[in-house]
């Protein structure tokens, strides 16, 4: 048991962040190396830690703040699922962002906060106690805000305000829930939370609801999702960060922690709080899809699609059967891979062809074939068309629903698949079969820095589905985690 590694893995993004803040605007080369170096080291550490965790070695670090208030960083399998995803996507997004932002203004600020954001995500994943989780959760909110408002135009600033207007009350609810719980039970360490039964059923239910409300804002659970589509005003790498690497994931991750490591499956079932959450998630899935259908802007449609997709994770977690857990957890990774691909492509369309609306997509497939192929793969994954990763998640979620005695889940999945098809296929149709108008602006995809990450994540989404049975696939890892939770 050592304390070095958890701290080190946090430092891989924290230290570059702090250094980058002080770099002059022109030092883009140093910035790039710091970022990429940090990301690369982090991936190496993650791989090493995976081996360690698979071998049953525990790593944890602790910092005392006040009696009863301490930061605990601890590496477990669930941590690594999230950290590995965010580390890989961070690397990709960084490469993408360097190319995307080019020599725009305020880059040191941007990349500084960007890395801080990832540091917060890492900390959140590593958090071993509720309060540690909360602290990093809140840090994530704060470090994301400057990224959302990065463009400094009216739209971004409004989006930033909205983001905070949703997030801060959410965090307040979360804090109340945590302190309420801890004032009765003492500090809650994940997976060994002590006896929650000292509180009454009603109190526990209220705590569960407050907690779900708090993290639900980040996870864009209906009706707390309003900020997400507005946040599309931010640059594409930020969207990628919000939708895939960090923010909404943090919310979903919080729900998983809540159900499995704080309340535990047994107590959740006893209180009967899983089902309402599952129903809300199911409603969000359908609602997000319906709203996506109504959008006319590419990024907004994708944003509502996220609203819908992230709730799959929550649905899986809330159903709490063996397969459902696996489905939910694996979707954490799969959704990240697929959605980031879509956002990378949307950014490419926007940046290289000036396309923001869906009706402008006509015939872009011919002019930007690689981008469009990646977009197609991502979209197919979202619909659940195999062998892109999405179908694996849905398969397990569906099985999980049946296993948990909730057959309606299958219906929700099928309906959502059709709705997803309803809003993605017309886009694909325009991309591949539409005819570009004569006055369409110049378009090309000659930006290796933006294209390579898109191709890589698209390939990863394909591989995650195609080789789901492999020993090191997300599915295998999710199954390992789930096995740890189930009696």
């Amino acid at each position, binding site marked *: 048991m050592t304390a070095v590694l958890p701290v080190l893995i946090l430092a891989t993004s924290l230290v570059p962040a702090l250094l980058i803040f002080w770099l002059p605007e022109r030092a883009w080369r140093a910035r790039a190396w710091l970022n990429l170096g940090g990301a690369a080291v982090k991936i190496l550490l993650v791989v090493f830690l995976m081996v360690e965790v698979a071998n049953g070695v525990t790593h944890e670090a602790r910092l005392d703040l006040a009696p009863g208030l301490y930061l605990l960083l601890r590496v477990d399998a669930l941590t690594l699922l999230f950290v590995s995803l965010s580390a890989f996507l961070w690397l990709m997004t960084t490469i993408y962002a360097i190319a995307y932002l080019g020599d725009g203004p305020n880059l040191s600020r941007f990349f500084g906060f960007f890395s801080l954001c990832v540091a917060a995500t890492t900390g959140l994943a590593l958090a071993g106690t509720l309060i540690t989780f909360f602290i990093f959760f809140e840090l994530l909110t704060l470090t994301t805000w400057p990224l959302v408002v990065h463009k400094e135009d009216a739209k971004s600033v409004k989006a930033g305000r909205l983001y905070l207007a949703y997030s801060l009350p959410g965090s307040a609810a979360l804090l109340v829930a945590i302190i309420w719980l801890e004032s009765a039970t003492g500090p809650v360490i994940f997976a060994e939370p002590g006896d929650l039964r000292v509180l009454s059923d009603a109190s526990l239910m209220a705590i569960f609801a407050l907690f779900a409300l708090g993290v639900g804002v980040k996870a864009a659970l209906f009706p707390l999702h309003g900020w997400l589509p507005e946040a599309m005003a931010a640059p594409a790498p930020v969207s990628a960060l919000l939708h895939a690497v960090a923010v909404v994931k943090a919310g979903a991750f919080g729900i998983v922690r809540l159900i499995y490591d704080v309340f535990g499956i047994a107590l959740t079932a006893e209180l009967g709080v899983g089902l309402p959450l599952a129903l809300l998630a199911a409603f969000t899935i359908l609602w997000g899809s319906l709203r996506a259908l109504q959008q006319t802007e590419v990024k907004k449609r994708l944003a509502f699609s996220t609203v819908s997709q992230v709730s799959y994770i929550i649905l899986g977690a809330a159903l709490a059967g063996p397969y459902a857990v696996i489905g939910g957890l694996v979707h954490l990774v799969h959704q990240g891979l697929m959605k980031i691909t879509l956002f990378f492509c949307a950014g490419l369309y926007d940046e290289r062809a000036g396309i923001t609306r869906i009706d402008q997509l006509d015939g872009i497939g011919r002019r930007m074939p690689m981008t469009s192929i990646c977009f197609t793969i991502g979209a197919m994954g979202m619909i659940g*068309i195999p062998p892109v990763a999405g179908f694996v998640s849905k398969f397990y979620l569906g099985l999980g629903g049946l296993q948990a005695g909730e057959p309606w889940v299958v219906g929700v*999945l099928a309906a959502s*698949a059709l709705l997803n098809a309803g809003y993605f296929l017309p886009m694909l149709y325009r991309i591949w079969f539409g005819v570009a108008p004569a006055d369409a602006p110049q378009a090309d995809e000659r930006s290796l820095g933006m294209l390579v990450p898109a191709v890589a994540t698209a390939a990863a989404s394909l591989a995650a589905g*195609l080789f789901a049975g492999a*020993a090191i696939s997300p599915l295998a890892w999710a199954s390992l985690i789930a096995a740890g939770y189930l009696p």
Partner: protein
Amino acid sequence: MNLVIGPLLPFVALAWPLLLGLGAAWPAWRERALWVLPAAPLPALLLAIAWPEGSTTAPALLLGTVLVLNAPGRLLLGMVAVIWLAAGIFALGYFRAPRKPAVFAGFWCLTLSGNLGVMLAADVATFYVAFAAVSFAAYWLVVHDGSARALMAGRVYLVLALLGEALLLVGLLLGVAAADSLSIAAVAASLSEAPLALTCLILGFGLKAGMVPLHMWLPLAHPAAPTPASAALSGAIVKAGIIGLIRFLPEDAGLWTTGLILLGLVGAYGGVVAGLLQRNAKAVLAYSTVSQMGLVLAVLGAGLTTEAALYAAHHGFAKAALFLGVGVLAATGRRALPWVLALAALPALSIAGAPLLGGALVKAAIKPGFAGWLEWAVALSATGTALLLARALWLAVRGRADAADARPAPLLWAPWAGLILVALALPWFLLASFSTLTPGYVLGLASLWDATWPLLLAALLAAPFLRLRPRVPALPEGDLVVPLGAAASAAMHTLRRLPEPTGPHLALPGATRGKAVLAALEAALLPWRRGGLLAAALVLALAWSLAG
């Protein structure tokens, strides 16, 4: 961990087309990408002809892929390989200046791989993936020529394919949950206990196989595709649904036993009626497929699984030959027409069950499944088939080449002729192993008569038509799709135009008023006198409470 446990060839057979397809995208090869088409199904052909039965596993692939080679699958696998081979060769002659050859070749290979995959898959996930591959990749074959008609057909195809996938997913999920296993055999065994799963699966597979009323995509998509692709679609791809039913139907399908027979017969006759009202040879052929698949469904409902496979295989060869025949006729001038037409009529006659041809054997094979009026109904359907195919040939002849001495190129007629040969001959070799009959049975007088009278009846019925040439009302391709499509697009339109909830607001109601109230309160606290008096009052109150 071994990547593959068991023989490698089944995986090679599936991966080889994919590799070729990817290779076709290579810039240097793009222009000549079509040459990969004939090569793609070769390993699968080898597998079907010369490989021992057995299964093989790749644990890392998907959710642990298991492929199995056994009797009905092997036959249909071979059929798929042969049809795609023939269609591939045909395509070389058919496309003179191909549009986007690399894209066409890529999706051709992907569709093929999926089509082969459904015949081999022994686990649910692999089956689902393969099924999706064949369904969705085929879309690009349908819309290849980019015409408005093709795009429209493609759209209908895609919507229904999606619906099929969704049904399939639900069915498979329910099935797997009931069986608690991913093995198809296990799922099938438990389906009699899971009626909802069975229903979803039958609808999903039926959709692919052209079961009424989910057949609408067939008469739209098959004619819209380029001829070699039509052949593959109608000959091979619809069989993905058939193999699904063969694999998944439990011993006791409950109500669906009757349901399949009834729906099958409705399709068998409805296809004939709707087909006769068509104006396009390929559309007529597509309706004939609906009709024939109806029969296969009925056979499956009757429980004759292997016979259904045999029937389906024969139909695949013959129908693919007919589609290619339309292409061959289109390249034939007046002079060579009689010979070509004579050859083109052979698969038609075979499907109609004319004596001594392959079709007669397979029709005899399925006969024991039916009794009473059903036996008659099945037998009589051959009359309809004959009429329908005659109409198809008639329409095809009208579309012959303008130049009187035009002759089909060898690349066109050779694969066609090959397919005809296989269609006519193969049942003779396979009848014994796929049914309880022997070839000798069909040579008996009774069965010769059984095969002949429907054709004579057809000739009788057709005669007045040929003489009088009445105007036949035209039925739009895809019949039901017209009203349904309109309804669907209206629904979609409504969904999209639903009033959007207003976006989130940050301004609080009454904020201005609240601000004024607060400011007034603040101003009231400012004058010293009030503050001082308050302080004095509080001092007194506190002193009193502290002393007490």
